[in-house]
């Protein structure tokens, strides 16, 4: 087993020979940048003055009281520029790509949030941008396609395979292996070959760095639990990371069960998948007995991915974090609940974490608190939720 980028047995660099040099180059550049105070200062400046950080830690008092258990705090990543946590990672990677002399960013996108964030930062930095998106997702998220185009990116429809997120990753990898000399592949989650899972986690760990300070300032003690939705796992890794050493803080990832973890129409990787090697990493994947990657399903295009980042697989294997399945129906109910309860329309992805909070908050002590990572805002999902509820609404 290779030794680089391992989280227990998970991680690694299972990728074509042609890309190995690009990964080595990226690793070296990242380690240098990480240790360079001027890089960190420039990134922090962009996070604060462009992306609107630090994000609020909001005490959802009404929701807490109505659920009748612990105090619930929402980490408001939905208030970031471009409306999701994705911008944290893209600013970091784009700054690094610029430092490496790359002139173009490519990205995969599912729901379109990572694509929009990449297109946004490419515009800001004056870089070329190509985004790969499954054909099916382009239809589901037409508004985000136009948004990316408005920002100057080219959006390429991927028709191969299932026409969803995994196929977009496949295509971005293929393009990168041709053009890595001048192109940086800005992977949107804590996945892929090393150094991506580590690097994306570092860039997203700003979420828990802030949240940990904020909760200590408000409550004077650490939360009993931290919840985040998980697809590839970037907002969850960001939300968990600085709480990992705090053993009393439960880390809970909420994954997309679609129509149910016991049905084939699911994307609940941790609850239905098994160890495998795909997209550059050893991790947990939804797959058949022969190692063919399974088609997955969730109402949330952002969680509709058949794998999970290797660090999550490791945290699950050690028992440090737990991963629970949330169905479409539960997520939609939580989406509606949060809108009516707190006046916040969150992303359907984030609603998976809200759904689990509704289950466990009433069982927790009023002396304790929990933090839910509200990874994104829900404007993009409104039409799809309306259709789910039988309203014939199109954007």
């Amino acid at each position, binding site marked *: 087993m290779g030794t680089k980028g391992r989280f227990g047995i998970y991680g690694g660099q299972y*990728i074509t020979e*042609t890309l190995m040099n690009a990964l080595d180059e990226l690793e070296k550049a990242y380690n240098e940048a990480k240790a360079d105070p001027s890089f960190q200062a420039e990134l922090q400046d962009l996070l604060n003055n462009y992306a609107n950080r630090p994000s609020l830690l909001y005490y959802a008092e009404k929701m807490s009281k109505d659920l009748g258990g612990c105090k619930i705090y929402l980490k408001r990543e939905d208030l970031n520029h471009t409306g999701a946590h994705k911008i944290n990672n893209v600013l970091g990677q784009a700054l690094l790509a610029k430092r490496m002399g790359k002139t173009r960013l490519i990205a995969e996108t599912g729901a379109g949030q990572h694509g929009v964030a990449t297109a946004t930062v490419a515009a800001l930095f004056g870089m070329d941008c190509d985004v790969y998106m499954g054909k099916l997702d382009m239809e589901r998220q037409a508004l985000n396609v136009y948004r990316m185009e408005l920002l100057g990116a080219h959006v390429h429809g991927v028709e191969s*395979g299932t026409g969803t997120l995994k196929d977009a990753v496949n295509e971005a990898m293929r393009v990168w292996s041709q053009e*890595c000399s001048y192109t940086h592949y800005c992977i949107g989650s804590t996945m892929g070959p090393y150094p991506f899972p580590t690097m994306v986690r570092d860039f997203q760990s700003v979420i828990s760095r802030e949240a940990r300070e904020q909760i200590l300032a408000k409550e004077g003690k650490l939360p009993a639990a931290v919840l985040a939705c998980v697809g590839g796992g970037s907002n969850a890794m960001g939300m968990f990371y600085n709480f990992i050493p705090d053993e009393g803080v439960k880390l809970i990832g909420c994954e997309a069960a679609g129509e149910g973890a016991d049905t084939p129409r699911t994307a609940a990787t941790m609850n239905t998948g098994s160890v*495998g090697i*795909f997209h550059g990493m050893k991790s947990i994947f939804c797959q058949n007995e022969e190692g063919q990657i399974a088609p997955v399903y969730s109402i949330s295009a952002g969680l509709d991915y058949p794998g999970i980042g290797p660090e999550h697989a490791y945290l699950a294997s050690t028992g440090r974090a737990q991963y629970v399945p949330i169905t479409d129906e539960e997520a939609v109910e939580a989406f509606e609940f949060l809108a009516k309860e707190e006046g916040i329309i969150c992303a359907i992805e984030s609603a998976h974490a809200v759904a689990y909070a509704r289950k466990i908050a009433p069982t927790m002590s009023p002396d304790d608190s929990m933090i839910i990572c509200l990874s994104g805002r829900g404007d993009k999902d409104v039409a799809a939720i309306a259709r789910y509820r039988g309203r014939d609404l199109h954007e």
Partner: protein
Amino acid sequence: MSKTLHAFKDGKAFIPFITAGDPDADTTVRDILAMADAGADLIEVGIPFSDPTAEGPVIQEADAIALKGGMTINGAFEVVERVREVKPDLPLAFMTYVNTLFKYRGDAPAGVATEPYVPFFERCAKDGIDAIILADVPFEEQDEVLAVSDKYGVDLISMVSPTSEDRIREIAKNPRGFIYVVSSMGVTGVRSEFQFDHIENMVRIIRETNPGVKCAVGFGISTPDQARKMASLSDGAIVGSAILRKIHAGATTEEIADYVRSMKQAVMESM
């Protein structure tokens, strides 16, 4: 004992690739036998994978056709067994993605744990597979596979590419079988132009490091002229997409064999 290196017995090798089950197992067996009779020195048999990230459109389509037609890992082994009945000495390699062999359980009953890779290489040894090429296992990740493939006498082929640079020397130190020289950047698929100086340079570094090692060039080759040129720079030429494209266009087994004959002749002319 692996027969991989028998592929180079004529001095220059022509190595075709086809995907098992594209369009069906019977055709694959017939095509392999005909290619062998037409002079193919080693045949790479692709085990189809759902998400072939190193492949261009032609091999992606081949994998999709094969999987849709019900091809499985066991099915690919059965293709090899049928070929072996007729051609006991033909060098044969599998080409696939690592997850298929990582997950393969052979005959192990449900619920019984198996060691990763062991059932797969056990079956390779039994069916007479000489080598394996894994598109998504670079040198740095080879050890976990080598620990098993070496034990069963199957050569895990290493690749070098135009970006391998300093890594070429590491890769060339102790290769199994031959070294697969990736002609150019990007995925598999026909190309009209090559940077021959890059290819020459890769082969030179390999030979400086390890003078005895055989190198064959693949990715993008389709014409006899290209095959002749690649064989003149190395020990052979590997061709995949060009053959599958013919299969997808409805070429007969005889037409595939004619093509292989012309390519084998071209590589021999390079000597």
